[in-house]
């Protein structure tokens, strides 16, 4: 019963969602958007639990005086600071909330993302060795596209790189992407159907 009811709910909700796709009637639309609003209502409570697990972890670190426990204070202060500033100071233009967004969150996100420039260079250096036939293909395609994407590279190859880049994107790359995409679509549908029909029950924990 502890498993049967949830499995039945999954089946019911899943089937309703499939059926409503075929019904253009207002009722179906209302039903659907109503459901979506439900998730907006539900997500907050999950978030509260989520935040609880994070804070709990950091409080424990502080209490136990683990390594780096001082940094846990930074996280906790950062969270409550931002939350209270937002709740009491508002979140519109010109508020402290937006200032913190602009001068703390923005540089942090942007810099974290910018690390990718370094990592892509080092990954390219390590991985792009003509060890096997497949690896050589990867290497050559990557080199051509890199040259084809910038004006200088194109000049160096007398326009050859950009023409070939365009060709690679339109023909082999497209074929590969389509093949992968179709496979993924099949996989997604299979996974969804497995779950709806209760063939896959592992999301409930053990399925045996």
């Amino acid at each position: 019963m502890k498993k049967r009811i949830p499995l039945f709910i999954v089946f019911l909700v899943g089937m309703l969602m499939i059926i409503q796709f075929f019904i253009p009637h207002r009722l179906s639309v209302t039903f659907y958007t109503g459901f979506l609003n439900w998730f907006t209502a539900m997500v907050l409570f999950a978030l509260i639990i989520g935040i609880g697990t994070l804070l709990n972890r950091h409080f424990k670190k502080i209490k136990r005086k683990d390594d780096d426990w001082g940094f846990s204070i930074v996280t906790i202060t950062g969270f409550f600071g931002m939350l209270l500033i937002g709740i009491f100071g508002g979140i519109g233009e010109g508020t402290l909330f937006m200032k913190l967004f602009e001068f703390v969150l923005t540089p942090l996100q942007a810099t974290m993302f910018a690390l990718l420039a370094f990592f892509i260079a080092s990954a390219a250096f390590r991985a792009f060795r003509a060890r096997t036939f497949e690896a050589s293909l990867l290497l050559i395609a990557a080199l051509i596209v890199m040259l084809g994407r910038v004006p200088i590279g194109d000049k160096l190859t007398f326009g050859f790189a950009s023409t070939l880049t365009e060709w690679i994107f339109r023909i082999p790359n497209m074929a590969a992407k389509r093949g992968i995409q179709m496979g993924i679509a099949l996989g997604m549908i299979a996974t969804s159907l497995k779950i709806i029909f209760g063939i896959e029950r592992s999301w409930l924990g053990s399925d045996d």
Partner: protein
Amino acid sequence: MDIIKKILHLDRRIIFLTLFIVLLITPFIHLEMKINITNPTRRIFNDVEEMSEGDPIIVSMSYAPFAKPELYPMTLAFLRHCCMKKLRIIFVATNEAGMSIAIQAMEEIKMEFEYEHGKDYVLLAFNPVLSAVMLGMGESITDIFPEDYYGNKTKGLKVLKDVNDYRDIKLLMDFSAGDSPVWWVVYANTRYNQRIGTGVTAVMAADFYPYLNTGQMIGLINGLKGAAEYETLINHTAEATEKMTSQAIAHIVIILFILIGNIAYFIDKRNKRKERHGTA
């Protein structure tokens, strides 16, 4: 021989440092570069060009500040174009930080074109359940967004006058660092036939070529290069065009690293073969 081994197992921090130094110097170098305009960019430009004054369009902000270097220049260029054409701009965000970027962008250009919030453009509130937003706007924009970003009632806003759902929207332009354009296609185009254009990071661009071919997306602005193209199209040279130099030199540096790595690999392989022959 030692040097070959060293190159093969090069400390990645040397690559990091080289790249950093190169990019620190290149902004001071100016090279004239001719930017050729690709078709997908031109198609977006033409679509906007053909609209008439007061036509409403939706601009979806689907990126967080981390993607700003790549997407902000094209966002600005596109919005500038919309303002030139005096279109009504409706901003939605599929990313919680998207609205902040929209605010920033409008701050930059609204004086020049005398755009006013509520009258010429509107920032709708962010709703974390994307599918709700994307589908809901097919039924009623003011229902799914009862309030705008500042908490005003959306019903009665001048900019939303006679704008009910997708059918009133000429173009939905999504600036995205993720796969949100696919979701717009799935929800807005598949269900409601909304015309969709996108501006995406170069990484994602490759993924969207199939959608361009199928016509599910009308056009696509591809990364910083696309932004430079759009800047050229609207005759307003800015950030993107300037950054193409650094871009080009960095590419050459990385290609050199790959070549050096491969040369070292081949020398090493030959040496090993020689050694084996020697001992045999």
